[in-house]
């Protein structure tokens, strides 16, 4: 596989995964960009990794985890110094009325491990690669995805008021 082809194939998948992890389009772009850049550098210096997708997703996973942690740590300080209310503002309310907003809100309510497993599947990463990225067995990954889907369905139905 050529580097350029791999990068073009992985870019939308990484963006999808990163948006699901961070819930923020700008941060998602930053995460996906870092992951792809790491892949390009690795490829040019030492040749292609054994599994380019697993390599890039592993980088994106670490980066998204760090960003989320930093955001969680800084949230109280930002609220204190910038005077932001922890309650959703008009923009957040508008976003919640869109499908993306409702989906992201429901995703946020999933446990981290289950959300991550589901998002790797949604990003079209194969089961083998997904299990490799998460460092778990394929059956454990399937279990997490199943649990996440079930819970997400409940949450989305509750959000639509169909239940």
């Amino acid at each position: 596989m050529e580097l350029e082809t791999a990068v073009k194939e992985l870019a939308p998948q990484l963006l999808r995964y990163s948006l699901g992890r961070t819930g923020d389009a700008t941060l998602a772009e930053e995460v996906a960009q870092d992951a792809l850049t790491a892949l390009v550098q690795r490829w040019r210096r030492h040749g292609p990794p054994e599994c380019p997708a697993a390599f890039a997703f592993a980088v994106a996973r670490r980066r998204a985890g760090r960003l989320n942690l930093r955001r969680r740590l800084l949230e109280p300080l930002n609220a204190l110094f910038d005077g932001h209310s922890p309650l959703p503002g008009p923009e957040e309310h508008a976003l919640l009325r869109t499908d993306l907003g409702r989906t992201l809100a429901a995703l946020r309510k999933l446990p981290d491990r289950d959300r991550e497993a589901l998002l790797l599947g949604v990003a079209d990463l194969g089961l083998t690669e997904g299990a490799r990225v998460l460092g778990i067995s394929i059956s454990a990954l399937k279990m997490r995805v199943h649990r996440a889907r079930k819970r997400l369905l409940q949450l989305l139905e509750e959000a639509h008021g169909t239940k």
Partner: protein
Amino acid sequence: MEPNDRTHGSPADLDRRLRGALEPPPEAVARIVGAALAGGSDAARGFRLIPVASALAVLMAAAALLLMAPWPPPGISPGGEPLPASISIENVGEVLILRARDGRRSLVHHRAPGEEASPSSSMIVLYGD
């Protein structure tokens, strides 16, 4: 009613909905592909290394200062023993006796303001070696 405003019973429906919701705009895809292939992150990586480089520079400067400082410091012999004092001060009543290493001694008496000098009534006693 939005097309997605419906119940999503099957996993395939759910995945489709998630993919649709999380689908990135083509311009964002093009942007990150272009930046990654251009290797633009070398500069970004360089910027990220600035704090590390600054910390290293400060550490090296501190090390250089320590190396250039005289050793042993004044008052300490090369063996680490304190050197004998060049002058010792001893207080006897209101008189201070300053004793130099070469044996010279000076006497200092503090006279309070208004106190009249009365040399005839003072007696200086030197004692010791």
